[in-house]
């Protein structure tokens, strides 16, 4: 870790981590003493769907290609809305896929396959 004169790589992290531990302890103790505000509505559905959709996109985009992964992303995340309707979302997915292929893949040259490796091998 080194000394103040010759700071090792662990010097700053140690100081910061110690600080964080202290803050955490204070916060913990405070939560037992003080009355806090309730957390309020927590959207499990929204959280789950958005995160799952994103992770899924990352997992399958190279394998299945944009043409599968992008609509999946759009539809799964759109499902999080209480106003979700299949017709609209499919149109949105199609439109966005087309837009992204044109702008990102052809226009900006992002190396993502339109049809993925699973299908072209």
């Amino acid at each position, binding site marked *: 870790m080194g000394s103040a004169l010759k700071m090792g790589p662990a010097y*700053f992290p140690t100081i910061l981590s110690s600080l964080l531990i202290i803050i955490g302890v204070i916060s913990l103790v405070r939560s037992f003493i003080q009355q806090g505000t309730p957390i309020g509505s927590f*959207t499990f559905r929204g959280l789950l769907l958005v995160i799952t*959709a994103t992770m899924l996109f990352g997992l399958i985009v190279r394998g299945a290609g944009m043409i599968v992964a992008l609509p999946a992303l759009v539809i799964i*995340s759109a499902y999080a809305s209480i106003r979700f309707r299949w017709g609209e979302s499919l149109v949105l997915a199609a439109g*966005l896929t087309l837009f992204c292929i044109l702008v990102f893949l052809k226009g900006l040259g992002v190396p993502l396959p339109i049809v993925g490796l699973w299908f072209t091998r």
Partner: protein
Amino acid sequence: MELIANLSLGFTTAFTGANLLYCLAGVFLGTLIGVLPGLGPTATIAMLLPVTFTLPPVSALIMLAGIYYGSQYGGSTTSILVNVPGEAASVVTTLDGYQMARQGRAGVALATAAIGSFFAGTVATLLLALFAPPLAEIALKFGPADYFSLMVLGLIAAVVLAQGSLLHAVGMVVLGLLLGLVGTDVNSGIERFTFDIPELADGVGFVVVAMGMFGLGEIIRNLENEKLRSEVVTKIASLMPTKEDWKRMMWPILRGTAIGSALGILPGSGSILGSFAAYSIEKKVSKNSAEFGKGAIEGVAAPESANNAGAQTSFIPLLTLGIPSNPVMALMVGAMIIQGIQPGPAVITEQPALFWGIIVSMWIGNFFLIILNLPLIGMWVRIIMVPYRFLFPAILVFCAIGVFSLKNVEFDIYFMALFGVLGYIFTKLDCEPAPMLLAFILGPLMEQYLRRALLLSRGDPTVFFRRPISATLLTLALLALIVACIPVLYKKREEAFREEP
């Protein structure tokens, strides 16, 4: 006289066809995202950073800057027409702006916002041009200890001005600093906090963090309750304010500009604090204070001027000291570093074309905005009507592809998702993510300056108090912290932020 020479250098840089186009694109895009609720300048700039890699540095920064101050214009449009703030700093405009709209005075409200914004933007740009060079000269006298203390001050200010619990904000700052340290230590070559994951050897990408916490986190938060919108005012009569209106808006615009300019420089706030402060002060000072909240034109003019002034002056710490004063500026630091420009006081002398080009383009941008916004009102209104359930999947798509395009690794997408979860949980737990992003950018820098300072002082930690600049800065930081803790002011701080959605 030097000012004239500098400004003409700026003009030649900013007036090229390409840069004018980028400026226009930036302000247009900025207005668009300002109009759209749920999408703010932070997430947008984060999304566009990958695109700016391919652009020359001046053009990239001109466009990104345009997005930021452009979003302040756009935010007021939804505030006035739909009673929904399109952007955090436009919250206050909903109070009187929407009321004016319901009274059939939507056009006047929009015009007032645009006029105030233009005036403020112009004045603030002038301030930037006047005060940046002398400030940069002072900054050249800074030693590593002074820089360290400045960053401490910046982070403390961000904590004090953050919403929510003070303690948690400090915790977020420390967390951000630690996060910034992830990766290979420059001095020793040893990997820290990487858990043997190769993708982390270069550290966590700030675009990943920014998009995750601000982009995804915001989307998830908006999905909590998809409110039915207030009735949208679509009939917009005349845009011209009456003579009486002009008289009434003059002083609020002047005051708002002054307040916004001053507060924009302070680290941690950007344009938000300015608009709140300007509204409160205007209400106290105005003869027509009884009308506030029921459609007083002053209630639109003052905050709108303040938020635009703040957006421009928040560039001052960035362009002179190289220190970001809010998350958007932090992203600008990132953009500059990617372009190979080291932010700091040397930028003015080493890259005068860049510096003055950006400043002049800000004025051009404000000009574009006032010309764009008033005739295009109809278009903005139609865009406002796009339901959020179409918008957020699109945002998600742009985030995912955008973050992938940085290093072409899927890992970044997963990590962004992780920060999305964290961002959401943090906001539910009353921990403001903005100070964390600021600290994240400053973390490695702070460590470097700390190391250098201690090296120069031979391990003596009192150097931070013996150097006059450093001592002043640290004292200010301490004062800010104490002031924020005093119970009376504590309550005021909570009150001020309670109106924020």
